[in-house]
């Protein structure tokens, strides 16, 4: 009985997808959300970008019925720290929020090809229900020089929708290029 009780307490991560060396303007991960899981964890490991402005930040959208949710429905707040040298932030801890047509994950360095990478872990709650969805994320950023930062963000979509997947791109889904060493998607039991 004790063993059964112990097993019921386990949080089980079921890996649904893992891919590596992905370079594109947009990466979509679609068709994995089911009612089997209330929570999904997406790891974007070792990424940076190219693009005059857009290649400096990561953006994410939900996909609904094959199309990205592009209206200004993403209400996101974050708490971040940037050390000296961060191009777009003041030094120290900062709080910001926005309602954009994408989740603005925040700054990373345009250092494609240099091996200077950032990492983000996202959690998405109940995407496969026809409701507003909440999400949160934690990022570690570094440009290999004097820009280092931590970002903790969370938000909700302000519309009811049944999400089937996620799209990942550079800032604002502009015309830059995103390079990712690894993407992993888990369903959490």
């Amino acid at each position: 009985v004790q063993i059964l009780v112990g097993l019921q307490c386990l949080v089980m991560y079921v890996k649904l997808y893992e891919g590596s060396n992905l370079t594109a303007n947009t990466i979509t991960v679609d068709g994995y959300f089911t009612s089997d899981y209330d929570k999904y964890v997406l790891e974007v490991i070792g990424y940076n970008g190219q693009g005059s402005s857009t290649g400096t930040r990561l953006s994410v959208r939900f996909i609904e019925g094959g199309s990205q949710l592009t209206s200004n429905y993403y209400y996101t707040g974050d708490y971040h720290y940037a050390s000296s040298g961060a191009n777009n932030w003041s030094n120290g801890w900062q709080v910001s929020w926005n309602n954009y047509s994408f989740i603005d994950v925040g700054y990373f360095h345009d250092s494609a090809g240099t091996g200077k990478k950032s990492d983000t872990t996202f959690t998405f709650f109940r995407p496969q229900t026809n409701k507003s969805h909440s999400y949160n994320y934690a990022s570690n950023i570094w440009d290999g020089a004097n820009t280092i930062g931590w970002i903790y963000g969370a938000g909700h979509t302000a519309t009811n929708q049944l999400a089937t997947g996620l799209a990942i791109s550079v800032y604002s889904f502009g015309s830059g290029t995103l390079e990712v060493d690894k993407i992993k998607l888990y369903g959490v039991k």
Partner: protein
Amino acid sequence: MKKIIITPNGTQEVDLTAEEIEQAQANNANAQATLQAEATS
């Protein structure tokens, strides 16, 4: 510009459509305005 489409049935790499490229380029203008505002705030 490329798009990588990952589904349980496999992974495809495709070119963005002309419409998608146009939209991405239009998004750049908004992005630059926002980032410049942040840089000067």
